[in-house]
């Protein structure tokens, strides 16, 4: 197992309907254990970058290598076991009309009701006790914080190698948002999961990211790593 988990080489993505270049010659490397933060203003190409990694869009030029293999060579089932995504729109991460437990069952390969009750306890309890007791409640009835915690817990049931976070705390109040971020970091470290996070929150970028990229008009306009201290003021120049 190599040190490098993900390599993006000269990635280019053009919107098919208006020929607008959304990603322009993007190259970046993600090592195992990295916490990469991508910042930028609206429309800078942050989410498109995650969508490209997540096989949601087919890019026109360049390549994305996962474990030194092009992502296109992976079968979807195999790839999505290795890469999980949590987005700001929780409707994309959870089955809203399902109960909490049914959402949990959807993540399992095979259902064996009795054993799965114990598994549910083991997986959900460490994150949030109240969700455990809302086992049969429909997800749409949960609060924003509970949904986000559940989405995180469910994404980690089959621990992925790479976790993509697309502004996953942006819809939450600052207190809950901090709690979810702390939980994300501690789980990530505990299970040695690599993370790529897209955010507008520069505080999180500076606090948690060991590599920070800023995008502008689809191009990387700023990069900083651990050896190169980043300040919030510095990032502000590129983001807004």
């Amino acid at each position, binding site marked *: 197992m190599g040190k490098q988990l993900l390599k993006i080489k000269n990635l280019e993505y053009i919107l098919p309907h208006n020929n607008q270049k959304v990603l322009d010659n993007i190259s970046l490397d993600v090592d195992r254990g990295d916490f990469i933060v991508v910042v930028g203003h609206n429309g800078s190409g942050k989410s498109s970058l995650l969508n490209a990694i997540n096989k949601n869009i087919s890019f026109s030029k360049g390549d994305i290598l996962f474990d030194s293999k092009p992502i296109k060579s992976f079968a979807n089932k*195999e790839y*999505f076991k290795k890469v999980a995504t949590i987005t700001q729109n929780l409707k*994309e991460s959870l089955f*809203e*009309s*399902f109960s909490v437990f049914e959402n949990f*069952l*959807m993540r399992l390969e095979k*259902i064996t009701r009795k054993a799965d009750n114990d598994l549910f306890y083991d997986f959900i309890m460490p994150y949030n006790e109240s969700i455990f007791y809302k086992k*049969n409640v429909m997800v749409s009835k949960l609060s924003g914080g509970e949904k986000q915690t559940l989405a995180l817990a469910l994404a980690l049931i089959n621990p992925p190698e790479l976790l993509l976070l697309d502004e996953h705390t942006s819809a939450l109040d600052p207190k809950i948002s901090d709690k979810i971020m702390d939980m994300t970091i501690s789980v990530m470290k505990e299970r040695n999961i690599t993370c790529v996070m897209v955010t507008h929150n520069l505080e999180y970028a500076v606090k948690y990211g060991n590599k920070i990229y800023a995008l502008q008009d689809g191009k990387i306009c700023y990069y900083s790593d651990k050896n190169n201290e980043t300040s919030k003021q510095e990032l502000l120049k590129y983001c807004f």
Partner: protein
Amino acid sequence: MQSVIDVFLQGFILVPLVLGIYLSYEVMKVTDLTVEGSFVLGAAVYARLIIESVNPVLALFIAISSGSLAGIAVGFIQRHDKIDSLIAGILMIFMLYSINLQIMGSPNLTTYNHTTVLTYLSYVFLDNAGFVFSALYAFLCIAAVYLLLNVQLGLRIRAYGDNKNLLYRLGHNPEKYRLIGLAFSNALAAGSGALTCQIYGFTDINMGFGIALTAIAAWLIGIQTMKKVFRYKNFSVRIDCVACLMGALLYYLIVTLFLRIGVNPIYLKLLVGLILVILLKVMSNKNRKPWENNC
């Protein structure tokens, strides 16, 4: 008393079809009107096979399977949502008309003098065989749908209706579940057609006219009544299955009541439609306006 038995008989015959509509319309969130064609397909295949002296149980199985083939075909037409489900369904009904006519060889077929599954049952239940058979058949279909939606396959069919993208990102092919769901839905419709053919002893090329909307009406009556009675909002397979049964029975109860009070049959569908509109209006959240936030 005979009217009550007739209501139950007609209701039981409609139950598999309502379950089929429930699977596509409510569980998968696909507006599939193909059931209108597969209902006749089931009846046509069954009548043709019975006339050709095929074993009645095998004929019933083939008739139900023909419905699932129609479901798979319409699933392929809808594939990747390139053709709207409503249009795909209408196209399929259109094509099935010719296929059904080809199978039947004439616009109608009678199975009176031939051995059907009902004939076997009539040795035991005599005059009540039709009622017993339709009731058994309805409850078998309810049990099948209940079981289906409680296993992993059913959960994934539900997931298709809830969030196709997430289903895909969990490594499952949504198109596979579209095909399976529509196959089940249309198999139930074909089963309802085959049952109709056995109970009434004939198949007509136009017997499916408006049957999909009848089933949708029955489903809406059933589910709205159950929601009012049990005050539930969550998804519950158990309550939904009971709603399918209740809906089918209530629909024919309403129709029978209208006929009993002397309503001209011409106005029957108009009145049932109006009742449905009133029912939906009364049961919906009276205070909510679409331009206001839910909170």
